[in-house]
């Protein structure tokens, strides 16, 4: 990641704005397509970005998603200002959720978001501080060895 990246940029995400949830992920997908990455890699990155974006919209006041693309990998960071996660191990359990009715009506909030993000990333890091916010960092390798 030391060399000049192919792309490095950030997108802001507004908490509670369900109408536009997914816009950032669509932009990220478009950028990755322009770079010319394989479609299965783009799909993984778009999915990771989308679940992260849904999390910020659902649970945080505001946040941002950073995309950095190097020849070897895609790094996606989701940094929010919000309630934070008191127990990360619990939050990582499939099916565990604090989602309200509105989130569930959108087809989310089933406690799969963080699990999905982790399973589609090659490297996944999460840190959170209650009352401050949550920081996710995901890396998806773009070399052919990482293809499923």
């Amino acid at each position, binding site marked *: 990641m030391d060399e000049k990246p192919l792309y490095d940029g950030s997108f802001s995400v507004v908490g509670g704005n369900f109408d536009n*949830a997914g816009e950032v992920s669509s932009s990220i997908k478009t950028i990755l397509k322009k770079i010319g990455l394989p479609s299965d890699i783009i799909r993984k990155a778009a999915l990771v970005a989308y679940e992260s974006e849904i999390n910020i919209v659902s649970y945080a006041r505001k946040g941002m998603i950073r995309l950095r693309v190097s020849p070897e990998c895609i790094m996606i960071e989701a940094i929010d200002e919000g309630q934070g996660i008191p127990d990360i191990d619990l939050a990582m359990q499939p099916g565990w959720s604090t989602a309200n009715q509105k989130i569930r009506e959108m*087809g989310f909030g*089933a406690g799969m978001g963080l699990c999905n993000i982790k399973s589609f990333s090659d490297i996944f890091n999460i840190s959170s501080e209650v009352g401050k916010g949550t920081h996710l960092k995901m890396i998806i390798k773009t070399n052919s060895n990482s293809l499923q």
Partner: protein
Amino acid sequence: MTLYEIKELLDAEVIIGENQLDMDVKTAFVADLMSDVLAFATAGSLLITGLTNPQVVRTADVLDIAAIIMGRGKRPSQETFQLAEELNIPLLTTKYILFEIAGRLYSKNIRGCIEKVGSK
């Protein structure tokens, strides 16, 4: 099976994608839970759902889903319609319930995009 044949089979109305009906489809995934769609659905599959909000289209876009079929007579909201149009994702609606949609498609050799979880 082409999207046109699927439209005929399901007595469906094409809301978006009249010009994409020659698209060939072999697999499908049925869910009302978008997180499960994200976890399990594969590129090029049909997404069969009873949800109508814009996140259905976003989810389809993220996964390169071939087309969305809304069952139980559900129709897209205005926002959903606009987004599907913008992203050029075919969207069909049918009065059949999801079980019937799946059964009819299966009888014509459309298969689940995965058979069981843990088998991808």
